[in-house]
């Protein structure tokens, strides 16, 4: 019942933001272009009756030809769950920051920037969070090359007479 109401709202929202609605394991997935993300998220936050007003998670996904930002939305006042996916260009991923809607997106967006190089417009402090500042490359992208174990695995050898 609840799900039907939510599904109706999501469909309405999808038509507003040129999105596609899918369902995966009982969760509605709304796929939009990166330019519509703020509209989609505000829309989801302000659903009447079943607001998806809690940003549960935000992460980047590299699907080969394009980069996605996945927002897991839920609510503290009901069982509704929703997933919003914003697709962008692989070469130059730019998206609007969700920090204006949820302050909690701050670190998550920094992490996504750190790992995928997604630039969040309007983020208050978009710096690398895990890797050091002059680290090159974005580790979780599929085109990031890791050196083999033999190169990384430097073992000190015993010096004779020690």
């Amino acid at each position, binding site marked *: 019942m609840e799900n039907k109401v939510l599904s109706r709202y999501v469909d309405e929202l999808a038509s507003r933001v040129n999105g596609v609605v899918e369902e995966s*394991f009982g969760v509605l997935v709304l796929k939009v272009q990166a330019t519509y993300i703020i509209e989609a998220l505000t829309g989801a936050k302000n659903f009447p009756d079943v607001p998806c*007003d809690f940003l549960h998670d935000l992460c980047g996904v590299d699907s080969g030809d394009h980069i996605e930002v996945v927002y897991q939305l839920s609510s*503290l006042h009901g069982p509704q769950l929703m997933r919003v996916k914003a697709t962008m260009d692989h070469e130059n991923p730019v998206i609007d920051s969700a920090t204006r809607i949820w302050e*909690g997106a701050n*670190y*998550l967006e920094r992490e996504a920037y750190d790992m995928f190089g997604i630039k969040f417009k309007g983020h208050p402090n978009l710096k690398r969070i895990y890797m*050091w500042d002059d680290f090159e490359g974005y580790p979780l992208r599929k085109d990031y090359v890791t050196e083999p174990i033999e190169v990384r695995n430097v073992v000190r050898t015993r010096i004779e007479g020690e």
Partner: protein
Amino acid sequence: MSIEKTEELILNMGPQHPSMHGLFRMVVHLAGETVTNIEPKLGYLHRGMEKLAESRTYSQFIPYTDRLDYLASPHNNWAYVQTVEKLMGVEIPERAEYLRVIFGELARIASHQVCIASTALDMAGWSAWSYAFRDRERICDMYEMTAGSRLTVNIMRIGGMSAEPPEEFWPALQSFLDDTPEMLEEYYGIFFGNEIAMGRLKNVGILTKEMAENLSITGPVLRASGVDYDVRKAEPYSIYERFDFDVPVRTGCDSYDRTIIRMDEIVESIKIIKQAVRDIPGGPIMAKVPKVIKPPVGEVYHRVENPKGELGFYIVSDGTTKPTRLRIRPATFINLQMLPIVAKGWKIQDVVAIFATLDAVLGEVDK
């Protein structure tokens, strides 16, 4: 003659600092003793779990989940294996579900004991620390006799449990459950009932309900801010809907409530374990799963109530033996965002206490 101005003192706390719970580092701006700004710096324990997952098979990643929130490793196993099971559509045997609940709740107790202990220790309550750790040892013993390890337990497998608890497990569990009221009384007597501790924690570091919701805070920290939300009730996973328990909520929003709510949660966990021990059926502990785990193409998100907040796994599968993308939603990483906001204007001692009440485990924060 130059005019001397007062300056902010910029103090670098961590990564090597006694109260930074591992390898947390924060740059604290101080005006005298008062904190004007905090910049947390993360990444000193970053092991690239999500990257590692992409080069491991689904079952090979289970030991790695132990290293996330290493104080409650069965819970991490649980969240991960349930996500994969959801993706594959595996039904697991009843007995395995009950055992998972027992181990998960034991892990919750152990984790909360460490939280209480380390909060006490960060305020120099040495004895409270050692008593809580003494009692946690008994849970570690139970892990050890069942799974063979005390900290990184690695007890769950995709489709069930790795091992049936040995005979001596059940009496040990029973005596632990019987002793818990006494333990809690002791923690209360030595730490929570202490006027100095109350003075240190009460009305310090207020995190209001609105702030908590806006900052995506989860877990006991959220419930101490007056939000009645627990994944075990809101979206019952595993067999939690069969148990009768309450979700403790406190409305103080301060450091004291963030800590003492964990005492209430221990009481609830004891209730759940008692019911699980009463109802546990016999039977196999492992479902029939293929030797090589190959989930279908798809994506799944699953979350569980970790002792420290909501732990979520988001797996994108392309039909091969290795996940394309495995995202871990770390609870304390997101909870940590409140530290600079909440601690502003308090003394440097309060920052240490507030950080302790967050119960951050850097294995989970840095992944």
